[in-house]
């Protein structure tokens, strides 16, 4: 035990008490003179009596003080004077009054202090019955102190405690000095009292009682405080069985509780214990570690419970929130947790690894989901596939909101090989494929995103084969490719990471699909306008010309009908396609018409074979890719 205890000196006691003594002594006289109602008589009598005790107690106190200094300085034990017995009687009487502890400038504590000193120094002497009595009185006094200690501890002003919640709005309104004195939730008068009691108990040899009372009470208070924040303990078993929606609701309160603990409560707890047990660093360290360890492990167990549930992609973001909370608060913990907390720090790292691995595996799950999407029904009209939509929106959200966190997760945990594991570390794809993305200058997360995009691309290519019409599969690829590009370009976060290589490649792929589409649909149509075979020996062969017109009309009609049903959601792509179609079809048709329309007889024949004017063609082209069943008759102007 540390002996930093400074017994109250006689002079300081007297100095503080002189005034009070006189007033206390005079008081009864005054009060009897004044016209007090009868009912107060008993009160007055008691006061008078108490003052009487005090008066003689004061004298005995001084005598004992002198006696004690003799006892403490002299090697030889002096005889025990009579006033010691008298003093003990007086103290016992005072004790039986159960006065509030901190009345009269804490004189009670000073008396207790003397009793403890007497007990200590007389222990060696042969005055056994006296020692027994003093021991009894000391024990009573200590019980009283312990009760007081507990009840002071048990009633913190909890309203004040959620002060530094960074999302809280009331923080700024709080007076800084008030907060300063209030850091622990106790008012500024309470903490010095706790400190005085603790000192007295430790000095009297009741250190363990004091520490246990402190530890149990504070643990329970922290538990209650966390409860008030909405944090609820959940068993791992329960977490398995809970619906994600229900479990998810517990995560924000946990985050709040964890932040509060690491940023506010633990450091306050540390200050509190150091203040209450000031001068006893080993006691305060011990108490602090006992209090914090339990709370901390309990908070980490919540994460363990969450990390044990079945993974799925929608859970990623909550996992990342937890990961962030664990990571961000490590540094604030470093300030609070001293060396003994190595264990807790390791626990926290282990837990963080678990949640980080979960996050990484969710990306692997996403890869697997893309790979195993075996839906055999093509999307009508070659529109954007739901898989593309889901994957791209997922990646965009992940990058926009969590890129920094995910980057860190991948950096810290992607190379995890479980030590002590009997099976090989998992590898999710062939090594050759992995190397492709393991560019030294590229973050593992970007590698992951690229891998997912490539997988998506191959999946889409496979799906495009489901269309019998090559032109439609080109539209499908263009739609999806465009969607991917737009999503990436709209997110500064991914776009920047991609370094344009992927975008350039995809754009060039899209141009190829466009070319193929034109070739498949429109070059065939232009085949009808071929002049070859129309002129035989400088003369236009009319039946052939009629045939050309007829097949052109039929084919265009057919294209219009089918491709109006096709879908291009992206307005820009839609207009690009229409412009590029018009650019090849209309000039060719116009010149064909200019050159050959004259060969048909005006009137019925012209009407029969020339169904479209160039302007009509343009109008009909504008019907394409709208997803509507295009009926020419209706739309024909």
């Amino acid at each position, binding site marked *: 035990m540390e002996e930093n205890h400074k017994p109250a000196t006689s002079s300081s006691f007297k100095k503080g008490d002189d005034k009070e003594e006189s007033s206390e002594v005079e008081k009864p006289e005054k009060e009897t003179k004044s016209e007090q109602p009868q009912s107060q008589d008993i009160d007055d009598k008691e006061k008078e009596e108490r003052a009487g005790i005090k008066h003689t107690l004061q004298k005995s106190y001084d005598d004992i003080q002198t006696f004690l200094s003799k006892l403490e300085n002299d090697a030889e034990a002096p005889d025990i004077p009579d006033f010691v017995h008298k003093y003990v009687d007086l103290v016992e009487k005072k004790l039986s009054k159960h006065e509030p502890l901190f009345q009269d400038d804490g004189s009670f504590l000073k008396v207790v202090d003397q009793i403890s000193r007497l007990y200590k120094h007389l222990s060696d002497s042969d005055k056994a019955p006296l020692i027994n009595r003093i021991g009894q009185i000391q024990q009573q006094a200590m019980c009283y102190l312990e009760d007081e200690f507990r009840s002071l501890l048990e009633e913190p002003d909890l309203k004040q405690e959620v002060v530094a919640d960074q999302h809280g709005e009331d923080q700024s309104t709080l007076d800084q000095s008030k907060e300063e004195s209030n850091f622990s939730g106790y008012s500024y008068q309470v903490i010095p009292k706790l400190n005085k009691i603790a000192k007295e108990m430790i000095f009297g040899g009741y250190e363990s009682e004091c520490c*246990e009372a402190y530890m*149990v009470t504070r643990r329970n208070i922290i538990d209650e405080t966390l409860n008030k924040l909405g944090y609820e303990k959940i068993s791992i078993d329960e977490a398995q069985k809970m619906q994600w929606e229900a479990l998810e609701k517990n995560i924000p309160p946990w985050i709040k509780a964890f932040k509060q603990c690491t940023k506010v409560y633990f450091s306050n707890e540390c200050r509190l214990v150091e203040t209450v047990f000031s001068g006893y660093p080993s006691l305060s360290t011990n108490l602090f570690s006992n209090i914090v360890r339990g709370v901390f492990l309990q908070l980490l167990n919540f994460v363990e419970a969450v990390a044990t549930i079945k993974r799925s992609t929608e859970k990623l973001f909550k996992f990342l929130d937890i990961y962030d909370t664990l990571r961000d608060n490590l540094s604030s913990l470093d300030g609070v947790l001293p060396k003994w907390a190595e264990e807790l720090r390791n626990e926290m790292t282990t837990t963080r690894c678990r949640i980080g691995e979960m996050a990484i595996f969710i990306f692997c799950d996403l890869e697997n989901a893309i790979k195993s999407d075996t839906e055999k029904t093509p999307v009508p009209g070659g529109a954007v596939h739901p898989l593309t939509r889901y994957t791209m929106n997922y990646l965009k959200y992940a990058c926009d909101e969590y890129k920094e966190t995910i980057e860190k997760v991948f950096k810290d945990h992607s190379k995890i090989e479980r030590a002590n594991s*009997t099976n090989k570390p998992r590898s999710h794809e062939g090594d050759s494929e992995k190397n492709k993305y393991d560019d030294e200058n590229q973050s593992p997360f970007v590698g992951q995103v690229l891998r997912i995009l490539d997988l998506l691309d191959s999946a889409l290519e496979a799906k495009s084969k489901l269309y019998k019409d090559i032109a439609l599969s080109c539209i499908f690829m263009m739609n999806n490719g465009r969607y991917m590009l737009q999503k990436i370009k709209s997110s500064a976060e991914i776009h920047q990471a991609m370094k344009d290589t992927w975008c350039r490649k995809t754009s060039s792929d899209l141009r190829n699909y466009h070319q193929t589409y034109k070739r498949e649909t429109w070059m065939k149509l232009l085949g009808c306008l071929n002049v070859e075979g129309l002129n035989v020996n400088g003369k236009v062969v009319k039946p052939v010309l009629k045939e050309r017109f007829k097949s052109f009309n039929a084919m265009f009609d057919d294209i219009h009908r089918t491709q109006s049903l096709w879908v291009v959601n992206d307005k820009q792509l839609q207009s690009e396609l229409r412009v590029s179609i018009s650019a090849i079809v209309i000039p060719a048709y116009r010149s064909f018409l200019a050159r050959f329309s004259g060969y048909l007889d005006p009137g019925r024949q012209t009407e029969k074979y020339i169904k479209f004017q160039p302007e009509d063609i343009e109008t009909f082209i504008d019907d394409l890719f709208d997803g509507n069943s295009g009926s020419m008759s209706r739309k024909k102007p």
Partner: protein
Amino acid sequence: MTGTDQSSFLGRISIRRNQVNAMEGYHEQEIEDLELFQKQLSDRFAELLSAPDDAPTEAFLSISWIRKLLDVFLCCETECKAILLMERDAAQISKPPLDRLIPELLERVVKAMDICNAVTNGVELVRHCQKLAEIAVSALEQKPFGEGQARRAKKALVSLMSAMHVDDKESSVQKTAERSWSFGRRSGNKDRHHGHYRSLSWQVAKHWSASKQIHAMTMNLAAPRGPEASCLPAPVYILSLIIVFVMWVLIAAIPCQERSGLTTHLPINKHVNWTHSLAGMHDKIGEEWKKKEKKGMAGLLYELQKMEKLGQSLIEFTDSYQFPGEKEKLDEVAAQVAELAEVCRRMDEGLVPLQMLIREAFHRLVRNRTEFLDVLEQGTPVV
């Protein structure tokens, strides 16, 4: 068991498995591995069973004994997992009946994780008991031994008893409704009761019950029969049974949330050799539990029981003590105090390492569950 024993065993399995493809008679080798493993289990459990009932150190159910049990558990667990998983793929462990047995095993693992946490809280309560007992010891060791010290010791011992007997259910966050004060200054009576305060809260979660978890863990826990008894279902059963047994012992020994109705019948197949000692321990602890459950007690932990017995007797002594006391009685009490001091010392020495071991067991369960899931997941069809 020494580390080399284990590494050689694991090495043996590893070599076997690497030769799998080339070798004929692979199944015979596996049976041999399993038999060797069961032999080792049998030896280790026999050693645990042979611990003396009452001894200053290493008694049955003492802290050091439980630490040994946990050591054995960690070893068995590693080996069992090696037999089950080493060099295997999902196809091998996901065909019937393993497709049912392994998920059941993993569910037991989850429940065992919670039990580890509950027991961790329980150990904290034991530490609290230790502190209270230490107060009593230091008061009782005072010379001359005055009435004040007697009262001090009694107060600590009464708190100790109430901490020990805190009803599992009542240990919730709610404030103990009534508080009697050492000094009746608030209510005005002079009744010098000993303070009755809230004890440590130690919940795992609301409504969580250790005995229900054990009950759930024993469901469908049946020894494999016929040809299954010599192939993979056997180690799954062994691992399950050991997990359930060890968790059951921890709950019976250490205070824990909601233990009422704890089963005393684990489905141990007594017809195989290796379970003999395990069944022996089970019967012994089960009997003990039945006896004590009625009385209500902190746990079968040797040190706790000792503490309880000595505490009761010392309360009686302090209750009627009058200074200066009879020498004979004082000497007799001095012996008890020395015994209590010894119990405290053993707790002081053993509880922290025990706490760490329980935590290690927890992390091991977490990790192994992940490893099983990994192997199973690798088998998901990849298109």
